[in-house]
């Protein structure tokens, strides 16, 4: 009974994390379409929400990686998974509050690794999986997206460079309805699956699911719904602030950047690599910018990505370990997770209220 209560809290926390992931990432997914006027903000956000939902259904490789290749499913408990989620949420919240660069995906994996180390030691962490399927792809993917964005924009300028700009811009704007949709689809595929993986890990840890049972359909549907609702909710905040946050680019650059981001995220999802979609999309945008004019690129964004690489995993792991320690103060039953979840909810509400009084939050990455 106690472990079932913890399991319910883990599922609710994971879905809340998924919602905030969609909320936070709406800007990355729709900004390019809005900035080139390919779509109105209202349509871009609704379109992205629907395709994030659909995207969550098209693959389960990333969910399998998170559920099976990060920690030993047989060695963890729902409380450990819960502490990992709290560690990730805490780190995301701190980086959001102070405007530090971060990655929700790396925070999630770091949090689970940290809480597992605190609970059962390093033996239960599958370091080969963490390095080979998370860390290395995390470094490679934004670089590939940069290269694809740069090559794509160079090729497109070479092909249409001597044509009249009006029809060319209209053509690429029309094309952006497809590449923007593919980017939203790719985002839903990779990011929603991380939540599916964590919930599946908790179900296996609780003994509700056998180790090789795969991801239950209700987990897929609930994760898809949470990320789509988050995307839709996050969009309205973007509509209000987009005037100051979106980088100006032409329609060909927008098309190339979105195509690069979608291609890298979809191919990585196919091979089961859980990526930071924010970093990949940033890589594609920077590549499309550098292909036109190197000095036009905000290289500070690249610096932010490097800082996020270095900080997020160890910091979220530390918070995950601390969350497990606090949870265990209340014993091994459901009391610890209930108290920590209540405290986290109060803390989140307080920080949101303080930020709301101070003005719009600084984007965290």
């Amino acid at each position, binding site marked *: 009974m106690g472990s079932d209560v913890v399991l319910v809290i883990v599922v609710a926390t994971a879905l809340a994390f998924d919602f905030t992931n969609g909320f936070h990432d709406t800007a990355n997914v729709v900004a390019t379409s809005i900035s080139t006027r390919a779509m109105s903000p209202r349509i871009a956000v609704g379109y992205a929400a629907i395709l994030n939902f659909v995207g969550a259904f*098209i*693959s*389960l*490789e990333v969910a399998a990686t998170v559920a099976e290749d990060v920690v030993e499913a047989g060695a963890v408990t729902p409380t450990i998974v819960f502490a990992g989620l709290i560690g990730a949420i805490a780190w995301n919240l701190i980086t959001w509050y102070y405007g530090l660069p971060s990655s929700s995906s790396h925070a999630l994996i770091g949090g689970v690794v940290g809480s597992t180390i605190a609970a059962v030691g390093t033996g239960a962490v599958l*370091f*080969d999986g963490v*390095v*080979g*399927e998370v860390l*290395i*792809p995390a470094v*490679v*993917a934004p670089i*590939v*997206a940069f*290269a*694809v*964005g740069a*090559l*794509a*924009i160079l*090729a*497109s300028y070479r*092909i*249409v460079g001597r*044509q*009249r700009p009006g*029809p*060319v811009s209209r*053509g*690429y704007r029309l*094309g952006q309805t*497809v*590449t923007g949709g*593919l980017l939203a*689809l790719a985002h839903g*595929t990779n990011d929603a699956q991380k939540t599916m993986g964590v919930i599946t890990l908790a179900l296996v840890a609780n003994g509700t699911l056998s180790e090789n049972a795969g991801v239950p359909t209700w987990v897929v549907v609930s994760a898809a719904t949470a990320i789509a609702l988050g995307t839709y909710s996050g969009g309205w905040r973007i509509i209000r602030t987009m005037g100051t946050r979106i980088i100006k680019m032409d329609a*060909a650059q927008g*098309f*190339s950047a979105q*195509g*690069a981001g*979608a*291609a*890298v995220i*979809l*191919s*990585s*999802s*196919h*091979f089961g*690599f859980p990526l930071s979609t924010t970093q990949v999309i940033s890589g594609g945008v920077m590549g499309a910018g550098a292909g036109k004019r190197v000095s036009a690129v905000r290289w500070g964004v690249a610096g932010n990505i490097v800082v996020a690489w270095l900080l997020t995993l160890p910091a979220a792991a530390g918070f995950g370990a601390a969350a497990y320690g606090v949870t265990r103060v209340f014993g091994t039953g459901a009391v610890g997770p209930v108290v920590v979840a209540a405290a986290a909810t109060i803390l989140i509400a307080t920080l949101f209220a303080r930020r709301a009084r101070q003005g719009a939050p600084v984007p965290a990455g």
Partner: protein
Amino acid sequence: MAMLATIVDSKALLETAAVAVVAGVGITIAFSFAIYGVARFADARRAGAPLAAGAAAALAVLALAACAAGITAAILVMISD
């Protein structure tokens, strides 16, 4: 370094990068040719050059078909996971 090579599934990583480059750059090139074809078609028609207009229209249609085929293939591969 050798240990890293055994941990990293370099074949999957290389395939990911190769597929991303081919798909990302390929679809942009194909779509750019479609735009080129449409723009040339309009110019040729205005100039009263039906042969050139036909060739440009054919290029646009072929390029758009290539784009659609590439995107459909990518989604089918994803769904087959």
